[in-house]
């Protein structure tokens, strides 16, 4: 598959040349393919936030390159700015960035900055609101009257309204209740299917990413030690735990079973797969 966005030997050093110098990323090669649903996992301080801020040109690499559709995003000022519209980034707790008088105006901020005509802006605002499940009645309200969960939806809609080819979300479900988590993840999946967009979901919850993504990238101490399908990545259960990341609970149970000498496939990460693995094991055992 061809990569829509990638980094080549990307390094970033904070406060270079001072006693507080700290390398957040070291020679990272990262790639996301067109239409892929990618998960990035890593602990706090692993460098994952630094990585995603490079992908839309908010941070400039200390060394290395960031390519969007094969072209360096820092080539010209105009390209950097255009990349920001093509690679949408939803920050953690995005509800704190709302500022307009009405929800409608706030969602329209991105599209207006793109200099689209009023008609197109209107269409995009309504589309984006529909994707995140905001009813029309909310559009004319002040964003500050809404509940926390709704504010979050408005903020996500504000990025979706730019209709980016790559949508990056940093912990979009942090601090929401389980119903809210499900619903937001569902909205993101809908957007992914409808627009065939590349989604990059950043999280530290293994359960959450395991259920959604096609491919996982693990970030640890400024490097990418593992990447692959969730099944491939979770096969490294012990190493992941050593990085302080842990694996989904069901995977942990199966690793333990394996360690106890049960001949069972340990790379499961959903309840459905677990059921199949146990059935398979019992069938084989019955056959003996």
């Amino acid at each position: 598959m061809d990569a829509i966005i990638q980094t080549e030997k990307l390094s970033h050093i904070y406060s270079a040349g001072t006693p507080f110098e700290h390398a957040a990323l070291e020679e990272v090669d990262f790639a996301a393919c067109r239409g892929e649903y990618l998960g990035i996992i890593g602990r706090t301080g692993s460098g994952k936030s630094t990585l995603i801020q490079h992908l839309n040109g908010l941070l400039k690499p200390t060394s290395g390159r960031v390519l969007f559709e094969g072209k360096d995003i820092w080539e010209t000022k105009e390209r950097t700015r255009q990349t920001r519209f093509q690679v949408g980034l939803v920050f953690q707790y995005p509800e704190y960035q709302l500022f307009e008088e009405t929800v409608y105006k706030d969602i329209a901020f991105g599209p207006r900055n793109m200099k689209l005509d009023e008609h197109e802006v209107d269409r995009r605002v309504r589309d984006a609101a529909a994707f995140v499940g905001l009813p029309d009645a909310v559009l004319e309200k002040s964003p500050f009257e809404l509940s926390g969960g709704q504010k979050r939806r408005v903020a996500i809609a504000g990025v979706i309204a730019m209709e980016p080819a790559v949508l990056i979300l940093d912990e979009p479900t942090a601090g929401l209740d389980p119903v809210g988590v499900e619903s937001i993840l569902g909205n993101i999946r809908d957007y992914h299917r409808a627009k065939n967009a590349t989604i990059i979901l950043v999280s530290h919850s293994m359960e959450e990413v395991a259920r959604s993504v096609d491919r996982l990238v693990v970030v640890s101490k400024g490097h990418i030690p593992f990447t692959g399908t969730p099944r491939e990545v979770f096969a490294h259960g012990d190493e992941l735990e050593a990085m302080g990341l842990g694996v989904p609970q069901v995977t942990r149970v199966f690793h333990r079973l394996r360690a106890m000498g049960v001949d069972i496939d340990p790379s499961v990460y959903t309840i459905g797969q677990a059921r199949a693995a146990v059935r398979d094991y019992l069938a084989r055992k019955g056959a003996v």
Partner: protein
Amino acid sequence: MALKDITLGQYFPGNTVIHRLDPRTKLLFTVLYIVALFSAKGGVAYAVLFAVLCASIAVSRIHPRNILRGMKPILFIIVLTAVLNIFYTPGDPIWQWKFLKITVEGLWAAFFMVLRISFLITCTFLLTYTTSPIMLTDGLERLLGPLKKLRVPVHELSMMMSIALRFIPTLIEETDKIMSAQKARGADFDTGNLFQKAKALVPLLVPLFISAFRRADELATAMECRCYHGGEGRTRLRQLRFQGSDIAALILGTALVALVLIFRALGI
């Protein structure tokens, strides 16, 4: 990341004699030093003041680079003062072009003025670099304690000051975050004329104010939950006590002022 590089009021932890001095001593010494600085007239007095400053920096183990970096923002003021002094001091002209003239007196005045401002800034930097903001406000509150009798709300003022200091880094970080988030939506803070630039700040300032008010609210609740009710009858975890070194420092400070006044009287 220019926002993060602000060093004003930054504290460099350490464990030198200067770091360990009572904050009241450091405040008083700084005041004495400034008094001496503004009484100084001749070269000898400035040399002594310079020596004291260098010795203090050496003892505090603060890298001179940090002090120079802190000077950068006020470089403009120093240059402006120097230029004004050079051209506007009456005396023997050594160079003249139309209404502009440079005098010998002007050059000397400019030279001493630059020294005076740099010493002043350096010694206050030394104070904030070696004293944590909490200690500083503690010291200030104790020093101004007597004003309580005049119904000056000293405790409240110092509490406000420590809270303000505490939230400077938080707000800088917050500004950075909101700026990034709005840039991700195509906000442009750098180009355009003054009016456009001011307008571009709205998406930054509105969320910033809202979050500052929210934080203030949360902090007030948290303080009330821990039964904060003002300074009345409040005791401290760290009691400030004068040590031998504090007395020595204060004697040194007083001696410095006396010395400078003697030099002034002698005219050297």
